């Protein structure tokens, strides 16, 4: 087993990995940018090395510097976390070449799964279903119609030259087909200067469901059940849960098998995630494989009781998995809410500034994976995610109630966050029913934002009274030194903004 590991990351995931390392008796080495000298991961670590200026291209993405630090500190392995260098094949190979262990899959697996067309081609050779469609843009309308009929209507006509819904048409029957292709081609031509379109199966009310897998160097591959990730906005996940309220044991076992087969197809080693789209008829299709630890991995940890980072480290040190497929069982229900420094009411615009007050929820079944504290400055340099609130309870209803309770308890003052947005989601009747799909946010956007802003007369009076009190207090103390102290923070943050 390793004695010392370098964590090539920052924020909550760096801290998350370090916690397991320390529990395993492994020393941890942090790297930090100029903006992060006093960041939580630096304070936690046994050793910490400055690697460059604030922009991540100068620091957390500078792998030559990170490798130097690894050598200097004597770290035997590097954990990349997620983001930054975690799916960089060059980094993975360079680390191995330097005689250091990369805690992640082989570079070859990262390469196959990182390239979407290569991944699709690899998957077509397996039994795992991929979203059916024409491989090439439509050249011959009768051939394309034949493909559409084989796939089964409805189908989607999609632009080959661009995205964003332009040049896209849903076609419900064969007699609408030719007309729709023509329209889609003209629309694509005017939008992208490229009139090529192709056919893909239209998935009705799709769910985004992913499976956690673990593969060791001894040929053992297992899956750890699913995470339902259909609550998204701007293609980014906000809330995840396990088990999925949508799939049953039979489908779970089929999808789990497919996930294992996916891992085999690229000779995967380590922890990984296979993402699927599932339509309303419960047909599932391979979407992509993420060759790293996922943001939402704690959801799986809470229901299976398995520490995924510990398994990653064991696998990297050539030990066999500590569990077999038959050992995996799911107990209770877990829900994760991602807390971003964003203004939900203002189209999720990033929010920066000082955290002037912080109250993190605790109590039974409440886990917070974050890297924040009072007084810390949220800068525009890095991901706006502040942390993840994961609530576990014996069943889904209790987990929903617990999440709402914990979100109510959560207070971050000084910046805007998605705490309240998450609260609006977990108490929405469709989310509570578990009948949601990936269109949830688009479908209920207005209701969610109205709920976010809803206040009672009592709340309005409290707000008015507080503002009155606040202004009077400031007026009363305007001649004392206290007032300079109070207004200071704004000036200070303005000046900090200039320096960093």
């Amino acid at each position: 087993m390793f004695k010392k590991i370098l964590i090539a990351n920052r924020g909550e995931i760096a801290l998350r990995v370090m916690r397991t390392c320390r529990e395993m008796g492994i020393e941890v080495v942090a790297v930090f940018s100029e903006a992060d000298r006093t960041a939580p991961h630096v304070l936690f670590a046994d050793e910490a090395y400055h690697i460059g200026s604030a922009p991540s291209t100068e620091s957390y993405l500078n792998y030559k510097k990170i490798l130097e630090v690894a050598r200097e500190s004597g770290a035997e392995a590097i954990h990349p976390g997620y983001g930054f260098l975690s799916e960089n094949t060059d980094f993975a190979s360079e680390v191995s070449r330097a005689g250091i262990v990369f805690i992640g899959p082989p570079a070859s697996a990262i390469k196959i799964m990182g390239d979407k067309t290569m991944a699709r081609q690899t998957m077509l050779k397996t039994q795992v279903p991929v979203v059916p469609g024409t491989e090439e843009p439509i050249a011959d309308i009768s051939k394309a119609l034949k493909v559409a009929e084989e796939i089964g209507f409805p189908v989607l006509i999609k632009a080959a030259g661009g995205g964003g819904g332009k040049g896209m048409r849903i076609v419900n029957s064969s007699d609408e087909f030719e007309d729709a292709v023509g329209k889609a081609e003209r629309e694509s031509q005017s939008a992208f200067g490229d009139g090529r379109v192709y056919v893909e199966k239209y998935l009705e009310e799709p769910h985004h469901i992913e499976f956690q897998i673990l593969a060791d160097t001894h040929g053992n591959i297992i899956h750890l059940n699913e995470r339902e990730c259909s609550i998204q906005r701007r293609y980014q996940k906000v809330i995840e849960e396990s088990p999925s309220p949508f799939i049953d044991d039979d489908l779970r076992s089929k999808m789990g098998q497919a996930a294992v087969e996916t891992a085999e197809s690229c000779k995967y080693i380590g922890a990984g995630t296979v993402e699927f789209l599932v339509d309303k008829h419960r047909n599932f299709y391979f979407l992509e494989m993420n060759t790293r630890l996922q943001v939402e991995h704690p959801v799986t940890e809470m229901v299976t009781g398995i520490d995924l980072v510990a398994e990653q480290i064991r696998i990297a040190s050539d030990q066999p998995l500590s569990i077999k497929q038959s050992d995996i069982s799911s107990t209770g229900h877990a829900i994760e809410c991602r807390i971003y420094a964003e203004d939900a009411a203002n189209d999720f615009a990033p929010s920066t500034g000082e955290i002037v007050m912080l109250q993190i929820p605790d109590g039974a079944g409440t886990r917070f994976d974050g890297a924040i504290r009072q007084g810390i400055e949220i800068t525009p340099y890095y991901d706006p995610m502040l942390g993840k609130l994961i609530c576990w309870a014996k069943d889904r209803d209790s987990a929903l109630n617990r999440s709402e309770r914990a979100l109510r308890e959560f207070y971050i003052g000084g910046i805007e966050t998605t705490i309240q947005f998450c609260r609006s989601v977990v108490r929405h009747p469709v989310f509570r029913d578990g009948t949601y799909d990936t269109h949830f946010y688009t479908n209920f956007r207005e209701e969610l934002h109205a709920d976010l802003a809803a206040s009672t007369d009592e709340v309005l009076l409290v707000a008015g009274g507080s503002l009155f009190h606040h202004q009077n207090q400031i007026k009363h103390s305007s001649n004392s030194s206290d007032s300079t102290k109070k207004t200071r923070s704004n000036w200070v943050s303005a000046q900090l903004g200039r320096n960093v």
Partner: protein
Amino acid sequence: MKFEINGNKQSLEANFTIDANELVIKTGGNELRFEAIQVQPGVYSVLMNNRSFVVGVCPSEVNRVNVNGTPINLELLDAVHLHLRELGWDALKEVKAGLISAQIPGLVTKIFHAPGDAVKEGDPLFLIEAMKMENEIKSPVSGTVKRIGVTEGQTVEKGTNIIEIV
């Protein structure tokens, strides 16, 4: 003192009186005893008729208040402001006079004054560029520039204090 409280598309009238350390709020025939204790700068523990709330007053935006997590864009108008509004004045501008902060995040491209300069109401103070549009910010008051919190070419967040005029 009579107030009109407007927030999140709701409006209420209430009467505030200060009684020792407490605020007494009278509204719709009810009398509520309101007590606020600051637990952190800008964060209050409020007991209103023994109902407990945590209230945050945003340091950079005077009219943004957060009650138990619900953000409210609040307007608190007293009798004077209500009267001014009837006369066609914008009450909120009065409240913010003196300390001019960025109302939008952007790039400060030009500052027209230095500390010590005398400015008249309506004088241009600085230019802020956001989404490729240049906005000229004029002084809401006459007075002397006390301090300037930014330099030209600096990117600022919404709410950053730019100029203080006394």
